[in-house]
C-alpha cells in the first residue's frame, strides 16, 4: 500500500514561475517584440506650457523618405475624449495645456526616421497666460485651462462630489471635488483638550517603471484591432478603446506581454495608445510606439501632489475627538486617477483610528502642470503623512507616549466605522505592539529625546506610523470581480485561465499555488494564462492590492468545482464515499489513511475515454461581498482591510541635513502568508519605494516644465542606501480571504514618509511637513529652527 502524507504549499518560499525566463533574459517585453511590416511611431509634444496652436505645417515631414504617415488632430476628426475625466483628445488641435500635450505623430520605417520627421514639423503657437500655482487656480481672473467643453453632452448640470466636473466647473478650473462628514466636528472640537492644526505639502514623484511605456497596434483585414499593451486593466481598456475609436469592443483584443513594472501607472488610457492606433489605421501596418526615458518622465503620470491642511483634537487621556481635513489637489492639465485619490485619503482620515467627528474636503484644480495618475498607495501616503505626524504631535502635547496614544485609539476587530467600513479582522493592535517591541521603540524614543541637545552632529531618532488600506478589493466599478476558466488535461496538467494580470508582483505564482492546494498537484503541473482578452475571462484589473484576494478566490472557486467533479467520479470507480477521499500529490487517496487508490491522470483518462466521455473543465466568477459607497462616501468598499505599523530609525547629520535610514521594523496584518518569498519581496520593495518618496525622489516641476527628466537628476534609492529591514507578519486569518490572506501590494510603501518624519523630529526636535527630506530642506529646517525668533 502506498501512503501519501498530507502536504501544503501555503506559507512556503515559492520561486516565481516566470523567474527563470526573466533571469536569463528570455522574457519578451513589449519593447522586445517586432511584428512583420511594423512601423515605428513617435509623438511631437508641445513646446509651450499653455498656448493656442495657430498653425501646424507637416509638409516637410511628410516628404521625408521612409515616413508613412504624419497625423495631426485635423487628420483624425473621429477622435473622442479619453481618460478618467474625458477632458482631453489624444491629438490636440486648437490648444495645448501642458508640455506633455501631443501635437502631431509620425509613423516611419525606423525610429531614427520618425524622430527626424518630428524635427521637420513646424508649429506656430500663440502663448496664453500660464497657471502653474494650484493655490491661484481659484482666484478671480486666473487663466482658464478648460474653457471649452470637450466632453460629450453630460446629464450632469452641476458638480457632483467624486465625479468629473462639467463645463461650468471647468471654467472655474475645478476638475473635481469631494466632501465627506461624520458626526459634528464643532462638538468634537469643543470637547478637545488639545488641538493641532498644520499644513502639509506633498510633492511630485513618478513611477519610474524600469520598462518604459510602449504599445504595438495592428489591424487585420477584417478591421479587428490587436493591441500589445502594458495596461493593468485590459478589460476596462477594451471598452474604453472602443469608445475612443468608435469601434465595436468585440473587435478589440488586448494582449499583455510581460510588463516591466506597473505600480498603478497603467490604470488609465493615455494619448499615446490611441495615437498608435490612429497611425496603424492610417498606414495599414502594425505600429510600435515606445517612449524614451526622458519622454517617460515628461509624459507619464505622477503621484498626486497635494497641499493638505489637517486639524485634529484629543482629550487629556489621549482619546481622539475630531479631525478636519482640507486638501488642494493640483490636478495638472487633465483629469486622471490622481484626482480621485480622496476616495482612499478620507478612509485614513476617518478610520485609521477611531475618530467620532470628522470632515474631509478636496478641491482638485486644473493647472498647466503634469497630471497625476494612480500610484501604489493611491493617496494614502499623503493622508498617512499628515495623520501620523499629528498623532505624534498630539501625544507630545499631552505628554503621552506615542505608542500609547495610538493604542488608545486603535481600531478593533468587529468595528464598523462611521464611514461604513467593517473590520471583520483587524491586526492593528498587534502591528503596533509587535513593531514597537521588535524595534525597541519606547527605549529608543526616550533616549533620542534625551539626546536631542547633546553635543555631536549625528542624531539618531525613531518614528512610527500605521496604516489602513483596502485588502479585499475595492468596489469602485459596477463589479469588482474576477473570472477563472480551469481545465485539466488527460495527464493531470492544469491550465488556469484567469482575468488577473501579472505585473511582476507574483500573482501568477500565488494563483497556481492556490489551485495546487485544492487539487493536490505539484506546482509544475499548472500553466497560468493571464494576458489575452480573447482567452481570459473578465477581471476589473490589477489595482487596489486586489489580485491575490479576488483572483485567488476566483481560482479557488474553479478548482473546488473541478475537485468535486473528480472526487464524485473517483468515488464511483473506487466504491468509496466521496467524503472519504482526498487529492494528494497527483493521486486519489483515502483521507483517513493516505492510501493511494489511483493516479489522478488515470482517473481523468478513464472519464474522458468512457461511454459518457467527459473532460474536467470548470469556470468560476468571484464577486467580493463588498459594497459601493453611497453618495456620502459611506460603505464597506472592501471585503477585508489590511493594517501595518512601521518603525523607522534614522540618523540625521545636523551639519549637512543628510537623513540616513538605518532600520525599518515592519509589522503587517497580511491575513495569512501564502508565498513567503513573494510577500517579503512585496514588503521590501514597498519599503524602499516609500523611502524614495520620503527622502530622495523629487520630480522638479518649474513653470510647468519637468526639470529633471532622467535618473541622473531624479534620485532613486540604490542598493547601498537601503535600511536594515525586520519584517513581521501578523496572521489574522481573514474569513473571506483566499486561505485567510489579504491583499498587501500597496501597504508597505504607505507608512514610510510619515514614520521618517516622526523619526527626524525625535532625533532633532524639528518637525518637517514638506516632502521630500532632502539634505537642503532638512538643513534649512534645522538651522531656521535653531535661529532666534524674529521680532514681528
Amino acid at each position: 500500500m502506498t501512503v501519501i502524507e498530507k502536504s501544503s504549499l501555503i506559507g512556503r518560499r515559492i520561486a516565481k514561475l516566470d523567474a527563470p525566463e526573466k533571469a536569463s533574459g528570455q522574457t519578451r517585453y513589449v519593447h522586445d517584440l517586432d511584428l512583420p511590416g511594423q512601423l515605428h511611431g513617435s509623438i511631437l509634444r508641445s513646446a509651450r506650457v499653455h498656448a493656442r496652436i495657430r498653425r501646424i505645417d507637416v509638409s516637410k515631414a511628410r516628404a521625408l523618405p521612409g515616413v508613412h504617415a504624419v497625423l495631426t488632430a485635423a487628420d483624425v476628426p473621429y477622435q473622442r475624449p479619453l481618460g478618467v475625466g474625458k477632458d482631453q483628445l489624444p491629438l490636440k488641435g486648437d490648444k495645448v495645456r501642458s508640455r506633455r500635450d501631443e501635437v502631431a505623430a509620425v509613423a516611419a520605417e525606423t525610429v531614427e526616421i520618425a524622430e527626424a520627421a518630428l524635427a521637420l514639423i513646424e508649429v506656430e503657437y500663440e502663448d496664453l497666460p500660464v497657471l502653474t500655482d494650484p493655490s491661484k487656480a481659484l482666484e478671480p481672473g486666473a487663466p482658464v485651462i478648460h474653457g471649452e467643453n470637450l466632453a460629450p453632452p453630460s446629464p450632469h448640470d452641476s458638480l457632483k462630489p467624486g465625479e468629473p466636473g462639467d463645463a461650468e466647473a471647468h471654467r472655474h478650473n475645478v476638475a473635481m471635488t469631494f466632501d465627506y462628514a461624520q458626526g459634528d466636528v464643532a462638538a468634537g472640537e469643543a470637547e478637545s483638550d488639545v488641538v493641532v492644526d498644520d499644513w502639509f505639502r506633498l510633492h511630485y514623484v513618478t513611477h519610474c517603471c524600469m520598462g518604459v511605456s510602449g504599445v504595438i497596434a495592428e489591424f487585420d483585414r477584417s478591421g479587428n484591432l490587436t493591441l500589445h499593451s502594458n495596461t493593468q486593466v485590459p478589460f476596462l481598456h477594451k471598452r474604453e478603446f472602443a469608445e475612443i475609436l468608435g469601434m465595436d469592443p468585440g473587435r478589440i483584443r488586448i494582449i499583455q506581454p510581460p510588463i516591466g513594472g506597473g505600480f498603478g501607472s497603467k490604470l488609465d488610457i493615455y494619448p499615446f495608445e490611441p495615437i498608435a492606433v490612429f497611425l496603424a489605421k492610417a498606414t495599414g501596418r502594425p505600429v510600435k510606439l515606445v517612449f524614451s526615458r526622458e519622454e517617460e518622465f515628461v509624459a507619464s503620470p505622477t503621484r498626486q501632489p497635494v497641499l493638505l491642511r489637517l486639524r485634529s483634537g484629543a482629550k487629556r487621556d489621549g482619546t481622539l475627538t475630531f479631525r478636519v481635513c482640507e486638501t488642494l489637489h493640483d490636478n495638472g492639465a487633465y483629469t486622471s486617477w490622481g484626482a480621485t485619490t480622496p476616495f482612499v485619503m478620507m478612509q485614513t482620515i476617518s478610520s485609521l483610528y477611531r475618530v467620532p467627528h470628522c470632515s474631509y474636503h478636496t478641491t482638485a484644480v486644473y493647472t498647466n502642470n503634469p497630471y497625476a495618475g494612480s500610484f501604489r498607495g493611491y493617496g494614502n501616503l499623503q493622508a498617512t503623512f499628515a495623520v501620523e505626524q499629528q498623532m505624534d504631535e498630539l501625544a507630545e502635547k499631552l505628554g503621552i507616549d506615542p505608542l500609547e496614544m495610538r493604542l488608545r485609539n486603535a481600531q478593533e476587530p468587529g468595528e464598523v466605522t462611521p464611514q461604513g467600513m467593517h473590520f471583520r479582522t483587524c491586526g492593528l493592535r498587534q502591528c503596533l505592539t509587535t513593531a514597537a517591541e521588535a524595534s525597541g521603540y519606547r527605549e529608543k524614543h526616550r533616549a533620542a529625546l534625551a539626546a536631542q541637545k547633546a553635543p555631536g552632529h549625528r542624531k539618531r531618532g525613531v518614528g512610527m506610523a500605521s496604516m489602513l488600506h483596502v485588502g479585499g478589493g475595492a468596489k469602485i466599478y459596477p463589479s469588482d470581480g474576477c473570472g477563472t476558466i480551469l481545465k485539466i488535461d488527460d495527464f493531470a496538467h492544469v491550465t488556469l485561465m484567469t482575468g488577473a494580470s501579472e505585473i511582476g508582483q507574483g500573482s501568477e505564482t500565488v494563483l497556481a499555488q492556490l489551485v495546487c492546494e485544492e487539487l493536490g498537484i505539484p506546482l509544475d503541473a499548472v500553466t497560468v494564462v493571464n494576458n489575452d482578452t480573447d482567452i481570459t475571462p473578465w477581471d476589473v484589473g490589477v489595482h487596489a492590492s486586489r489580485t491575490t484576494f479576488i483572483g485567488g478566490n476566483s481560482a479557488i472557486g474553479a478548482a473546488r468545482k473541478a475537485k468535486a467533479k473528480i472526487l464524485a467520479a473517483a468515488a464511483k470507480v473506487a466504491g468509496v464515499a466521496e467524503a472519504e477521499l482526498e487529492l494528494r500529490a497527483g493521486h486519489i487517496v483515502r483521507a483517513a489513511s493516505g492510501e493511494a487508490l489511483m493516479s489522478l491522470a488515470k482517473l481523468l483518462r478513464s472519464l474522458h475515454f468512457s461511454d459518457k466521455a467527459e473532460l474536467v473543465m470548470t469556470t468560476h466568477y468571484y464577486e467580493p461581498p463588498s459594497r459601493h459607497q453611497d453618495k456620502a462616501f459611506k460603505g464597506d468598499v472592501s471585503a477585508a482591510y489590511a493594517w501595518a505599523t512601521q518603525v523607522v530609525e534614522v540618523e540625521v547629520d545636523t551639519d549637512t541635513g543628510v537623513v540616513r535610514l538605518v532600520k525599518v521594523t515592519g509589522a503587517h496584518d497580511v491575513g495569512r502568508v501564502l508565498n513567503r518569498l513573494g510577500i517579503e519581496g512585496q514588503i521590501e520593495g514597498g519599503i524602499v519605494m516609500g523611502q524614495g518618496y520620503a527622502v530622495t525622489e523629487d520630480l522638479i516641476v518649474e513653470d510647468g516644465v519637468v526639470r529633471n527628466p532622467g535618473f541622473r537628476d531624479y534620485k532613486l534609492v540604490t542598493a547601498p542606501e537601503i535600511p536594515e529591514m525586520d519584517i513581521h507578519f501578523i496572521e489574522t486569518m481573514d474569513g473571506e480571504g483566499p486561505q485567510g490572506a489579504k491583499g498587501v501590494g500597496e501597504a508597505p510603501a504607505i507608512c514610510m514618509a510619515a514614520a521618517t518624519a516622526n523619526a527626524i523630529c525625535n532625533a532633532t526636535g524639528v518637525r518637517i511637513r514638506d516632502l521630500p527630506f532632502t539634505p537642503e530642506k532638512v538643513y534649512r529646517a534645522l538651522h531656521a529652527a535653531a535661529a532666534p525668533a524674529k521680532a514681528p
Partner: protein
Amino acid sequence: MSHMREIEFELNGVRTRATVRLDMSALAMLRDVMGLTGTKYACGEGECGACTIIVDGVSVCSCLMFAVDCEDRTLTTIEGVGREPLGARLERAFVDCGAVQCGFCTPGVVMQAKHWLEAHPNPTRDEIKRGIEGNLCRCTGYVKIVDAIEAASRAEG
C-alpha cells in the same frame, strides 16, 4: 552606405560579423541588429545598469558604448552568461531567492554581479550592495538581489 561599417567581434563565444551604423550604440546593435533582446534599454545614459554587458572581462553599460568600438572585442550578454558556471549559478540564485519581480532590471544586475563576483569572490553583504550600486531596481528593494548574489558567491561551481 558610407556611414555604415562592418565589424567583427566575439559574441557569447561565437565569432560574429555585423554591419552597424557609426552612431549606433552597442545596445542598439545587440537588440536591433543581432536580435538579442535580453539586454534592456531603460535610460540610455548609463544611469540604470539595465543594459550591462561584459566586454573583455569588464562590465559596461552598452548604451554608452559605440557599436563600432566592439570591433575585435569579446562580448558576453545575458544570453551567453548562463553557459558559464558562475552565470548559471547567479541565474539559479536569482530565481530561488526571489530576486526577480517585473524582471526588467534583472539581466543587467546578473551581468554586473557576474563581473563583480569574479573580482570579489567572498564578499560581505555591504560589499555586494556597493558592487551593484549602479543598477536600479524599482520592484525588489534590493534585499533579495543581495541574497541571490551572496548565495551564488557561496555555492560551488
